[in-house]
Every structure is written in structure tokens, then in C-alpha cells.
């Protein structure tokens, strides 16, 4: 049994224009100490998938079905009060925007000790001591001084590290990192990724890394799930994925990397993501696929096994690269 099991998860939102299906029938697993990357372009449903685990989606408008099990325990039906026990302690989140994700009116120290005192019965001093250790863990120099500082006094990279410190404070089983490096300079990115690697090695934390940056995926992830229009279109261990991408979308993403540029021109995937309001029984990628044929419009391809741990949903998958 895996640490985290997501089975047939479907998430939709009630909007003025109707029910928007953000995630359609996704299943994936996460093991201890594993770094799983959820990748795809904006709007493919990767954030929504991840946020379904701690249930941080807007309560009034979210329509969720399927199962999310942590250590065998079903999370989707937990009463809110119990869910609050899970958040911050078993499952925690590092958000995308370090600038705005920290409360500007409270000190860094307060925001870290807050989560510590919520979940572990620590005295104020003990919590403060632990907070200093956490700041050291994430590589922030002069941690004792930082405790009294406010978010606006820190640089973007440091704020992100503080967010990580808050997220790992109570040694969570699963850490969800939502585009943790997107808002940062490339030079800082490497440092943040090192922190994640370190956490995985030292604490055995399982990490779900949401990103659209395949470079980050190659750098740090063990396995990757490629999502498109709310569905998983390919899943594989990272080395296998980069060696043998099967789904045309995955191939398109890799070709779009600057490193794959030919004659100084970036390859792009033409066309746009289909509307999330409809869900016809056909391949969602057909309008943009270079390998599209008639059967792609007749039915939706489901995930098929191609090799050990490698799944792809395509009627005409690519061969070896």
C-alpha cells in the first residue's frame, strides 16, 4: 500500500457559466520518500489535483468525487475538524507566491511557531527553538535574527525557504510544492530544489511537485505524471519518461524546452487547450496532435501500460526517441 493513493478523482467547480471540470478521473500513487512531479501547462488541473489532498479548494463551489487515501485513511469524507488536524501536520503545502503567501503583519518567527504550537504541544520557548532549527534546516543564515523579522524584510528566495520551513515544521508525510520555483530567479531555484532533496533524504518526506518546468522535473523528480485538460496522459519514472516519451503531448513539451531549440527557434505546440465545460468522448489533444487519425476522434484513449511503471493514453504512441 502506498503512502498516498488517489483513485478516480474528479473535481469540478460551479461557475456562472456552468460546471467546469478541472480534473477528470485521475489516479496516482505516492510512496514514502518519493518525489512525484505533476506537470503540464497552466489550467491542466495539476494544482487542483494536488490541492484535493489537503482539501484546500473553495468549499462552496467544489464538486469532488473519487477517493484520496493517506495511509489507508480516506480524506475526502473527513469532517472539517479532523481535516484541520491533517493539514499542516500530515499534509502541508508550499505555495507558489512567496511574496504574498506570508502574512505581512506577523514576524517570520510567529508564522513558524504558529503551526508548531497548533499541532504539537510546545511551549513558546520550545517552539521558538524548534523554529530556529527549521530555519537552519532550510539554509537561512543568521536564523535567530530572522525570527524577529517581517516578510517584507526578506528576499524572495528567503521567503520561499521560510514557507518551506513552515511546511515541514511538523514533519509532514506529504509535502505539496506548488510551482515552488516559478516566482524565483534561476540562480535561487537551484538552492530551493536542494532544500527539497535534502528534506527527502533526511526526513523521508514524500513530495508532490507541481510544475510546468520540465527542467525542474528532470533535476529532482523520481516519477512524473503529465496532465492535459484535466486528465493524466502519461506517467513514468523520470529517466524512462525522458528517454521514451510516448504521448505526443509529452514529446511536444520536451521539444519546447529551450535546450531542444533548433536553429535558435523554439518549437511550440500549436492550438489551445479545449474548453473545460465539455467532455466529449474523444482524445482531448487531437486538435494539436501531429499524429492524429480518425480513431482519435471516435473514442477517448485510456492509460495503457507500455513498460514497467510507464503508462500512456494514446492510440498512436511514439516509439523510442
Amino acid at each position, binding site marked *: 500500500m502506498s503512502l498516498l493513493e488517489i483513485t478516480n478523482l474528479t473535481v469540478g467547480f460551479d461557475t456562472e457559466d456552468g460546471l467546469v471540470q478541472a480534473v477528470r478521473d485521475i489516479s496516482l500513487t505516492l510512496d514514502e520518500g518519493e518525489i512525484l512531479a505533476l506537470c503540464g501547462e497552466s489550467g491542466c488541473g495539476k494544482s487542483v489535483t494536488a490541492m484535493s489532498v489537503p482539501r*484546500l479548494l473553495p468549499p462552496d463551489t467544489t464538486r469532488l468525487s473519487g477517493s484520496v487515501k493517506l495511509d489507508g485513511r480516506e480524506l475526502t469524507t473527513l469532517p472539517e475538524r479532523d481535516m*484541520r488536524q491533517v493539514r499542516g501536520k500530515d499534509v502541508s*503545502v508550499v505555495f507558489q507566491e512567496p511574496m504574498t503567501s506570508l502574512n505581512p*503583519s506577523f514576524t517570520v518567527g510567529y508564522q513558524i511557531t504558529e503551526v508548531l504550537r497548533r499541532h504539537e504541544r510546545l511551549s513558546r520557548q520550545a517552539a521558538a527553538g524548534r523554529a530556529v532549527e527549521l530555519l537552519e534546516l532550510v539554509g537561512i543564515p543568521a536564523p535567530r535574527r530572522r525570527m524577529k523579522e517581517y516578510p517584507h524584510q526578506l528576499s524572495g528566495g528567503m521567503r520561499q525557504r521560510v514557507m518551506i520551513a513552515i511546511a515541514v515544521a511538523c514533519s509532514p508525510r506529504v509535502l505539496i510544492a506548488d510551482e515552488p520555483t516559478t516566482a524565483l530567479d534561476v540562480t535561487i531555484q537551484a538552492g530551493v530544489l536542494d532544500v527539497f532533496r535534502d528534506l527527502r533524504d533526511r526526513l523521508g518526506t514524500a513530495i508532490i511537485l507541481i510544475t510546468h518546468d520540465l527542467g525542474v522535473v528532470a533535476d529532482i523528480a523520481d516519477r512524473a505524471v503529465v496532465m492535459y485538460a484535466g486528465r493524466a496522459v502519461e506517467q513514468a519514472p523520470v529517466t524512462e519518461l525522458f528517454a521514451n516519451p510516448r504521448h505526443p503531448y509529452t514529446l511536444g513539451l520536451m521539444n519546447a524546452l529551450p535546450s531542444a531549440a533548433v536553429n535558435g527557434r523554439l518549437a511550440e505546440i500549436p492550438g489551445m487547450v479545449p474548453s473545460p465545460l465539455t467532455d466529449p468522448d474523444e482524445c482531448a489533444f487531437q486538435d494539436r496532435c501531429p499524429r492524429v487519425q480518425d480513431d482519435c476522434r471516435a473514442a477517448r484513449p485510456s492509460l495503457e501500460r507500455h513498460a514497467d511503471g510507464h503508462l500512456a493514453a494514446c492510440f498512436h504512441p511514439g516509439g523510442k526517441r
Partner: protein
Amino acid sequence: MLWFILRRCGSAVIVLFLASVLIFLGIRVLPGDPATVMAGEEASPAVVEAIRHEFGLDKPLPAQYLDYVGQTLTGNFGRSTQDQLPVIDIIAERLPVTLELSLLAMLVAIVVGVGAGIAAAVRRGRLADYVATGFGLAGLSVPHFWLGLLGILLFAVTWRILPASGYVPFTQDPAQNLQRMILPALVLGTGFAAILMRQTRSAMLGALSADYVRTARSKGLSEAKVVGAHALRNSLTTVVTVLGLQLGALISGAVVTEQIFVIPGFGKLTVDAVLTRNYPVIQAVVLITVIGYVLVNLLVDIAYAFLNPRIRLSGGTRD
């Protein structure tokens, strides 16, 4: 932070200076002889002369201003033309009354206004929100002296549970004092509460949709903590600013409220003084109001700086 306070104090002093000049000149702009004006229309020539001498009205203007400042700082505001009593005494008697009324009204306004604003923001789009917003609009539109009249009509004339007017000093009889203050404080506080409610609601809505609230929730904090600590804390600056801005309205409102409920306060003193052309009193009253107003705004600015860490730490530039 210290620099900030000093700069604001400096600003306040300049404003006070300019205001005092305006007030000083105001009296002397009137047609006719200032001494007669100040002595009142029924005063005998001898009294007029005494006033002229006492107030140095035969001296050149700048010297007069200096006298004026000196006198003000020593609390000498002259004598009321109504009854020749020292103005300072009259003020000392009336001011606490208005202060009590204003404080009670502010209390009502904060409790009701901020409370309703938070409730409306947290329960956005639901009944509580509509009720609170409706109340907010009504409070802004209804002239509160009319509200006072209606209040009297309802509570005093029709139901007879509260007295229609009058005042009993707190030191004399606390129960009676409060009973007479309930309606005026409610009436005065309502308009203010409406404005506070709107501002609090909008500030809280902004805070509740902010990223840091999402972070707070992801920590598993209770909803009370998320709303009460994280969201509210960041809305306080707006609330405090509004408080400061609306103080002028509160003072104006007190004047009218005292008129309706016949409360012998500072406000009523002002109106009576104007109607009877009691210039020494008018001058003193206006000056004291301005001083009070500037002081409170200064306090609000300091409170704002205190609440906003960015300014607190950098000794900030505000505009």
C-alpha cells in the same frame, strides 16, 4: 518609528499654527469694532474699554496675535458675553459631557460596525451579508438627527421606556446618566457604525481572499484563528484610518445630537453661542475642536504606523 512620530507631530504643530491664525483673524474680520463685538451688544462703554485694554486690541496685529497665543496657552479665553463667566470654566463644564457621549457612541459604532463588517465578509453572499450591507447603506443615507427624532418618538413618546431628553452627570447618578445617554449614543453611533461596517467588510473581503489566508488554512488553523488573527489583523489599518477620517463627522454629529436630546455639552454650547453671537465662546470652541481633531488624527496616524510593520520599522515616508 520615532522619526515618523516626530514628523507627524511637526506637521500637527504647523497645522495648529495655521488654524489658530485663521481663527484669530476670523473674529477680526467682522464688521465693526472687535472690542464691542467681544464685549457683546449690551455692554456699557466702560466694559468695552476694559475689554479693549484686556485684549490689547489697541496694539498692532502681530502683537495681538502673540497675546492671543499667550492667553490661549494659559487658558484665558475671555468671558462669555451672555453671563460674563470665564469661558474656560464653561468649557471645562461642558466638554466632559460631550466626551462621554462621543466615547459611548464610538463604542457602539465599533462593536456594531466592525462586528457586522466581519460577519458580512465571512458570510459573504448570504443573509447576514445582505442584512449588514443594507444596514450600512441605510446608516449612510438616513440623517441621524432624524433618527434621533424617530428614536424619541418611539422610545419616549410612544413606548415611554427612555427619557426624551436631559442629562444627569455621571458623578451624581450613574444609572440615570447612562439611561439618558443610551438613545443619544445609539443615534450618534449608528451613522458611524454604518461607515465602519462598509469599510471593515471590504477590507476583510480583501484579506480573506489573500494568499496568506490560504497559507494559514493550510496550516490547519481553526477558522476563528484564520479570520480573527490573520485576516482581521491586516484589516485593522483600514479600520483605524476610517476611524480617524470619520471623527469630524462624529464631532458634527455630537453637536446635533446634543441639540435634539438637550444635552448640555460642548456641541450645544457651540450652537447656542453662534445664535447669540457670543464671540469669545465661539472662538474658544472652534479652537478647542480643532486642537482635539488634530490630536486625534495624530493618534490615528501613530496607530496606523504601529499596525503596519513596514512603516514602523523604516520610520517611513507615507505619501
